[in-house]
C-alpha cells in the first residue's frame, strides 16, 4: 500500500517496525503536495524543507527507540494555528505576511509528541465560511468528483476545507481543524473523512487565531476514528494560558475505539428531520440507526425543541464576538497596513484592503447586534436562547448517552453554488451549530456514498468531556459502513 494511504496507527507501527523511514513517509506526502496542491489548493504554505528536516530527526529518535506517539507522522496544520517562525495567515490578506514568534498550545503539544508538519492548510478567511471559498488565497477544491463528472469542481466544505481535502487526498495523514459552528464536521463529511470537535475547553485556544471565542474549539481530522483518537490524545489538555480550558484528566482515547456498545442508549432527535434534508442523507441516517442497533445500542426518540433557533442564534453570537476579536487587526503592530492621512483613514483603508466580503459582513452584523438599543433584542436574547439549546442537550443526555444525526443536509456542492444568498450558505451548518452552541463534543463519520457518488457523513453528539463514547460509537459506524472509498484526486499514483 502506498505510504499516503496508510492510517496514522498503521504508519506509526510501520515506522517502529522499520518498514519505512520517517523521511520516506514524509517525502511521500511532500511530493504529493508538490504534485497536487497546485490543483487542490489545500495548503497555503507547504513546508517541505522543514518537514524533511523534522523527519530525519524523527528517524534518529526511532533509531534510539525514543519515539513518541506521533513521531514521524506528517500532519497538516490549519492556518489558524500560530506556528513559531512559520507564516500564519488565517487565509486573510491582513495577515498574509504574518510570522508569529510563538507556537499555539495545540501545535506545541503535537510537536512534543513527535508530529511532523508538512504545511499550513487553507481555510475560509478567519474560519468564516462553509465552503472554503472565502480564502484570500483562493478556494480549495474537493478531491471528490460526482459520478461521471470529472469537470465540476466541488467545494470541500468549510472552514477547515484545506485540512479536509488534504487528508482525503493523501496530502497529510491527519490535520488539525477548528470548529466554531461545524468547521471540522461539515468538511469532514464533504470529503469522506472523520472529524472530531471536542468539548469546548478540551483543547487550549492559546495561539489559535480567534473567530468566536465562546465557540472555537480545535480538533483532529483524519481518515479513521482511531487516528482521530491518537491525535486528540496529543492535542487535548488543560492550559493555564487559556482561562476557558478545563482542568480535567485526558483519558486514553484509543482505548475507547472499538469498545462494546452493548446497552448504549442512542438518541434520535426529531427536529433534525428538517426541511431540505436530502433523501440520500435521510437514508444514510436510517442505515446508521440500524447499524448501531445491530451493535447492541438501544435507539430512543428524543426532542431538542430549540434546534430551529440554533442557526439564527449562532449568527448573532459568533459575529458579535468576531466583531470584537478582529478589532486588533488595525495595521498598527503587525499585519498589513495601508497608510492614511489620519488614524481613522488608516484603519479604514487597512481593514477594507485586509478583510474579504464575508469577514466584513460578519463584523458588520456583530457590530450591529452589540450596538446600543439593539443589544437586548439581539445579543442578550441570543444568549438566553443559547442556554435553552444547552438545556435541550442536557435534558436529552439524562435519557441517552449519545445522539445520532446527519452532519450536513446535503453532500458537497459545486463551487459557485449557494453564493448568491449568504443565508443559503449558512444553512449548511444547520445540524452542526447546535452542538457548538451547547459546547458538546461531536464527530462526523463517513458512512457511505450518495446517489452521485459523494461521501455522506453522520454526526454523533456526546456529553461534555465524553469524547470516548463518540469514539466508541464512531468506530462501530465505521466498521459497519466499511467505508473504503477514495476520492478521484489523490496522491496514490499521482506522480
Amino acid at each position: 500500500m502506498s505510504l499516503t494511504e496508510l492510517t496514522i496507527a498503521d504508519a506509526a507501527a510501520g515506522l517502529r517496525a522499520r518498514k519505512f523511514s520517517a523521511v520516506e513517509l514524509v517525502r511521500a506526502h511532500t511530493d504529493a503536495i508538490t504534485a497536487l496542491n497546485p490543483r487542490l489548493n489545500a495548503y497555503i504554505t507547504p513546508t517541505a524543507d522543514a518537514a524533511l528536516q523534522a523527519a530525519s530527526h524523527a528517524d534518529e529518535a526511532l533509531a534510539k527507540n525514543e519515539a513518541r506517539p506521533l513521531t514521524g507522522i506528517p500532519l497538516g496544520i490549519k492556518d489558524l494555528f500560530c506556528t513559531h517562525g512559520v507564516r500564519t495567515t488565517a487565509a486573510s490578506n491582513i495577515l498574509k505576511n504574518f510570522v508569529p514568534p510563538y507556537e499555539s498550545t495545540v501545535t506545541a503539544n503535537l510537536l512534543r509528541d513527535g508530529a511532523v508538519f508538512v504545511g499550513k492548510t487553507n481555510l475560509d478567511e478567519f474560519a468564516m465560511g462553509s465552503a472554503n471559498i472565502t480564502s484570500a488565497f483562493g478556494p480549495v477544491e474537493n478531491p471528490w468528483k460526482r459520478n461521471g463528472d470529472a469537470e465540476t469542481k466541488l467545494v470541500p466544505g468549510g472552514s477547515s476545507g484545506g485540512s479536509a481535502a488534504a487528508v482525503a487526498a493523501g496530502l497529510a495523514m491527519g490535520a488539525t481543524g477548528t470548529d466554531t459552528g461545524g468547521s471540522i464536521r461539515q468538511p469532514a463529511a464533504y470529503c469522506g473523512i472523520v472529524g472530531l470537535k471536542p468539548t469546548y475547553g478540551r483543547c487550549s485556544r492559546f495561539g489559535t487565531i480567534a473567530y468566536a471565542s465562546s465557540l472555537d474549539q480545535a480538533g483532529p481530522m483524519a481518515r479513521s476514528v482511531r487516528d482521530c483518537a491518537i491525535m486528540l490524545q496529543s492535542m487535548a489538555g488543560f492550559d493555564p494560558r487559556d482561562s476557558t480550558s478545563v482542568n480535567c484528566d485526558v483519558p486514553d482515547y484509543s482505548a475507547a475505539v472499538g469498545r462494546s456498545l452493548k446497552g448504549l442508549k442512542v438518541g434520535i432527535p426529531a427536529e433534525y428531520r428538517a426541511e431540505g434534508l436530502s433523501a440520500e442523507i435521510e437514508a444514510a441516517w436510517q442505515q446508521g440507526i440500524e447499524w448501531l442497533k445491530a451493535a447492541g445500542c438501544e435507539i430512543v426518540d428524543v426532542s431538542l425543541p430549540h434546534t430551529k433557533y440554533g442557526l439564527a442564534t449562532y449568527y448573532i453570537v459568533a459575529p458579535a464576538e468576531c466583531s470584537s476579536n478582529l478589532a486588533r487587526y488595525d495595521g498598527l503592530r503587525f499585519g498589513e497596513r495601508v497608510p492614511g492621512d489620519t488614524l481613522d483613514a488608516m484603519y479604514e483603508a487597512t481593514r477594507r484592503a485586509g478583510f474579504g466580503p464575508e469577514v466584513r459582513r460578519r463584523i458588520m452584523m456583530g457590530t450591529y447586534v452589540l450596538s446600543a438599543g439593539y443589544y437586548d433584542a439581539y445579543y442578550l436574547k441570543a444568549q438566553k436562547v443559547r442556554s435553552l439549546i444547552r438545556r435541550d442537550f442536557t435534558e436529552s443526555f439524562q435519557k441517552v448517552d449519545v445522539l445520532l444525526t446527519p452532519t450536513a443536509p446535503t453532500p458537497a456542492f459545486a463551487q459557485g453554488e449557494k453564493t448568491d444568498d449568504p443565508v443559503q450558505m449558512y444553512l449548511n451548518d444547520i445540524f452542526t451549530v447546535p452542538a457548538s452552541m451547547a459546547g458538546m463534543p461531536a464527530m462526523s463519520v463517513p458512512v457511505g456514498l450518495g446517489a452521485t457518488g459523494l461521501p455522506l457523513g453522520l454526526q454523533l453528539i456526546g456529553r461534555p468531556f465524553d469524547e470516548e463514547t463518540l469514539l466508541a460509537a464512531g468506530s462501530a459506524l465505521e466498521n459497519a459502513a466499511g467505508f473504503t472509498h477514495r476520492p478521484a484526486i489523490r496522491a496514490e499514483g499521482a506522480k
Partner: protein
Amino acid sequence: MSYTLEGRTGTWEIVVGLEVHAQVISHSKLFSGASASYGGEPNTHVSLVDAGFPGMLPVLNHECVAQAIRTGLGLRARINLESRFDRKNYFYADLPTGYQISQFTHPIVGEGTVEIELSDGTVRHIGITRLHMEQDAGKSMHDQDPTRSFIDLNRAGVALMEIVSEPDIRSPEEAGAYLRKLRQILRYLGTCDGNMEEGSMRADVNVSVRKAGEPFRTRCEIKNVNSIRYVMHAIEVEATRQIEVWEDGGEVDQETRLFDPSRNETRSLRSKEDAHDYRYFPDPDLLPLVVEQAWVDELERELPELPDDKRDRFIRQYGIPRYDASVLVAEQAIADYYEEVAKGRDARLAANWVTGDLFGALNRTGRSIQDTPISAQALGGMLDLMADGTINGKIAKEVFEDMLETGDSAADIVERKGLKQVTDTGAIDAAVADVLARNADKVEEYRGGKDRLFGFFVGQVMKAMAGKANPAIVNEALKKVL
C-alpha cells in the same frame, strides 16, 4: 456652613460625583505577566498579550483581585463574590486589542462609604457606588515628531481600579477632602501609591448645579484631572459656567469636557451625540470571577488598621485632641513614628513635639518623615531627658535644633554643651537674691499687687542661669522670698 454660588437669579448649589482611576500596586499586569512598574524605556514592559497579538488570551492576575478586594474592604464596601469582565470596544492607537477589558455590569465591589472631615470640623459621609477592575491603555505621544505619533504600550494592560462615588459631594473642599481621604486609604492598604503626578491616580469629575430643593440637573464630565488642586478648581470653574448657561436661558448639554488649568476653563471634548457606542459584552475569553468568602475573610483579617480607626484609637489611647490625631494618621509612616515616640512616655507631649517642632523642621528642610534626620528613638530619648529633669522645655528646643543639624543624640548634646539643668537650690537662691536686689523697684510694684511681674522675675533668674535652672525650683524660691 454649606457651599453655594451666587448667580443673577439666586443661589446655586453644586452636585459632584467623582470617578477615580487608581493604578493597582502589583508586580505584573491585570491579564499578562509583563511588569507593571512605572518608567522603563518605551515598549519594554509589553507581552504579546498586551500587544494584542493573534491568538493571545488574557489570564487574570489574582494579586490584582486581592488588591481590589482589600480596597473594597477599606472603603467598607460590599464585596461581590461573583463578578464579570466585559469588553468595552473602541478603536484607538494605544488600545492594541480594540477593546478594554473592564467590569461594566458586574463589578467586584459594590456600595461603600468614605468619611471626610472638613476644615470647620464637619464630618460627612460620601457614598461609594462601586469599584471595578479594568485595564489601562497605552500612551500616545504626539509631540515627538512633526508627522508621526508614537505609541508606548508599557502601561497597556496595567490594572486599574475605578472607584465611583455617589453624587454626594457639595463643594470643591469636599471633593478635595474626599480625594485626600481616598488616597490615604489606598496608601494605608498598599493597593495604590496615589501618586497623581505620575498618573497612578486620576479623576473624572461629574459636575452639575441646581437651586435648593431641585432634583439633579444635567451634568458634565470633566475627564482625567490629575491633581487635587485642579479637581477643586475645575469644579468651581465648571459650576460657574453652567450657572451662566442656565441663567442665560440656555440648557447645559450632557457632554465630556476637559479642564485647562493654564486658562482656568473647561472645554467641550465631545457631546453626547458623538459619544462612543462601546458595545459592551461579556468577555468570552474569561470566566466569571468567583471568589470565596473565606478568602475575603482572610484578606480582611490581614488588613492594616485603617486611618479612621487609628485616629479614634489615638484619641482614646493617647488622650490627644481629634485634630492632632487626624494629623498624625495622615500617613502610616507618621503614625508609626508617633507611636514609637509616645510609647511609655507623655503621649500628649510627644504629639506636640511631632506635630509642632518635627513637622516644622521637616517642612523647613523639605524632607518627609521617611528621611527625617531625627529618628523616633532619638526624639524619644530627648523626651526622656525632659521627663527625668535633665533638661527643661527651653533647653529642649536648643537640643532639638542641634539634633537636627548634627544627628547626635540628645544626651550627647547635653553633655557636650553642658546643658544639664541646675537643681542646686543654693545657686538658684543666690541668683534669686541677686535679681531681686537689682530690681528693687519692681519688687515694690509686685508687692503692691502687680502679680504679672512674677514672670519677669522668673525670666531674669533663668537668664542669669543661662536657661539651665529647673523652672519649678526657681518658682518656688521666688515665691518664698517674695
